[in-house]
């Protein structure tokens, strides 16, 4: 030891003085610190399908909001003289929107036949009562989105509090609340709607009531399961020890930590609700005539598609695009908020 120490010679140049700010620089984290949400948004932005879906849905929402005040023409106004006109844009130069139809092998200008004034045209054509299909489609999409919005509302207003209370209280209250859910969920959704139809007239009301009875159950189950684990966390224990009221704990600690579950589940219940309404309207027990819904438009289109296929294409495309976009966005959100599930 002694030998070695004499071999190495230290002088002042062997050492370099480190300035204080240098230490700070080394300790500095180069990437900006992100909150959980910022991080999720960053991951979501990487998912191209989800981003495209998001903007597409934003566009559809804007269109639907516009349709509340304005549609090209009255969606329920009938012009029997202008019935079953094919799609036409402006002067009919764009393929597929020429206003001409194939009748028995001959191309016929339907607009000339029906003596439609030259300035008038229907972008997506008219139906068997001469109603403007574009306006009806706009109204139908708006209705679907309204249903989706209501489904979200039920999830948040009933599902989340139900799940939090059930999970937080535990014991007998929990058992009772879970049995209630079990019984409700073993009755098929459709049966509940039909029971509602026996009570009320078919329409938005009975669909909404049926959604209010069953729509929030999945959310309540997920929230309860999550609450059960959150409840044992140290920060919740600390809040309890400090005498925080259960209501405040739920608002300040539980709900923020449940937010990713809540967001993901609402995104999945929207397409389910949209499908549900379209299905009911398709079989004729949903939205009553004359109001437009994607289901009724599709059902009308299906009856005449051999001769007038355009009446089926657009509602079919609209509902498919909306459903795909919501599902892709929901998938993207799930991956973004819960990176563990992503393979």
């Amino acid at each position, binding site marked *: 030891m002694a030998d070695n120490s004499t071999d190495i010679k230290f002088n002042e140049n062997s050492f370099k003085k480190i300035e204080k700010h240098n230490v700070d620089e080394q300790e500095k984290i180069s990437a900006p610190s992100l909150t959980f949400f910022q991080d999720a948004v960053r991951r979501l932005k990487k998912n191209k399908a989800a981003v495209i879906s998001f903007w597409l849905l934003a566009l559809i929402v804007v269109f639907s909001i516009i349709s509340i005040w304005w549609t090209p023409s009255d969606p329920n106004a009938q012009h029997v003289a202008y019935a079953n006109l094919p799609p036409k844009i402006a002067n009919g130069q764009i393929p597929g929107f020429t206003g001409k139809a194939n009748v028995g092998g001959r191309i016929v200008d339907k607009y000339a036949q029906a003596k439609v004034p030259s300035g008038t045209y229907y972008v997506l054509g008219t139906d068997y009562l001469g109603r403007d299909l574009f306006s009806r489609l706009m109204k139908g999409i708006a209705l679907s989105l309204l249903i989706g919005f209501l489904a979200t509302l039920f999830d948040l207003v009933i599902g989340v509090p139900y799940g939090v209370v059930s999970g937080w209280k535990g014991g007998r209250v929990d058992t009772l609340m879970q049995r209630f859910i079990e019984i409700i969920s073993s009755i098929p959704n459709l049966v509940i709607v039909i029971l509602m139809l026996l009570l009320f007239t078919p329409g938005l009301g009975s669909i909404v009531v049926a959604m209010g009875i069953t729509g929030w159950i999945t959310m309540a189950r997920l929230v309860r399961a999550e609450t059960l684990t959150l409840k044992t966390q140290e920060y919740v224990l600390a809040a309890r020890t400090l005498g925080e009221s259960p209501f405040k704990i739920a608002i300040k600690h539980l709900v923020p930590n449940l937010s990713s579950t809540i967001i993901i589940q609402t995104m999945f219940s929207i397409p389910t609700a949209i499908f549900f309404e379209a299905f009911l309207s398709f079989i004729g027990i949903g939205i009553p005539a004359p109001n437009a819904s994607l289901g009724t438009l599709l059902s009308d289109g299906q009856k005449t598609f051999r001769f007038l296929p355009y009446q089926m294409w657009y509602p079919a495309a609209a*509902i498919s695009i909306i459903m795909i976009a919501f*599902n892709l966005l929901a998938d993207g959100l799930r991956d973004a908020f819960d990176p563990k599930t992503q393979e």
Partner: protein
Amino acid sequence: MGKYILKRIGYMILTLFIIATATFFLMKLMPGSPYANQAKMSAEQIKIMNQQYGLDKPVFQQYIIYLVGLLHGDFGTSFQFNNQPVSYLISSRIGPSMQIGVQAIILGTVLGILLGAIAAIRKNSWVDTVATFFAILGRSIPNFVFAVLLQFFLAFKLKIFPIALWDGFSSSILPTIALAMAPLATTARFMRTEMVDVLNSDYIELARAKGNTPWQTVAKHALRNSLIPVITIIGPMAVDLMVGSMVVENIFSIPGIGDQFVKSITTNDYPTIMGLTLLYSFMLIVVILVVDILYGFIDPRIRLSGNEGSN
């Protein structure tokens, strides 16, 4: 296990009882009379008719008669459809529905399992992308849209299949495909996730290390274990199928119970609606129960909690 099954059967009977009671009293609340031209009938005639249908008895007694009838498989008499007994309407129409339902579930699950397994084995390849794409389409596009599109392209444009007819196997192909899309998508998606998990596990590593070919490893070890959780989604899939069958039968004019249900709803045929509602609920609850019990038997690791039900 035995106690659990008994408990579940108890809940099942309770639920069915609630549904039966609710439908009965809701029907009693309905305004109007079951006779189409009551205005033309004399008081005497109405009395005779009421006696014939047991409508002159107090509501509670009617309710008991109704419940006893249900236990004997008597669902009452249809208001429409030539006053046939509801049980006859159902039994004469259940065949086509069952055929399409069974075909669809076989086609959907088998193809779904294959698609999901291939996607998992060739993870992140073009096969995976294509499979995922189809799974999203199958999950998103409503079955009635599928049915209408199939009818338009394959039956109307290409004339490969009959448009709407119930005559032999060929007429059941399009409805089967339309119904199978949703189970296919669900199974494929579920299967892929499970398979990816299983393929990363130690025993697969061991199977490979023993010198098994990739095919042997998948067929003998991976597939079996991935299949277990897939059983859980049979319940929700059965619900989708029942609901789906209503529109699909309607679109393809198949004389099944789904078609009957839609027709009964649109003609306010309450006894038939009630009978079919009970039948659907019964089938649904039985399927979910059987799946839960099966699951417990197949995989003893699963602690039965009774929370697996789905609507």
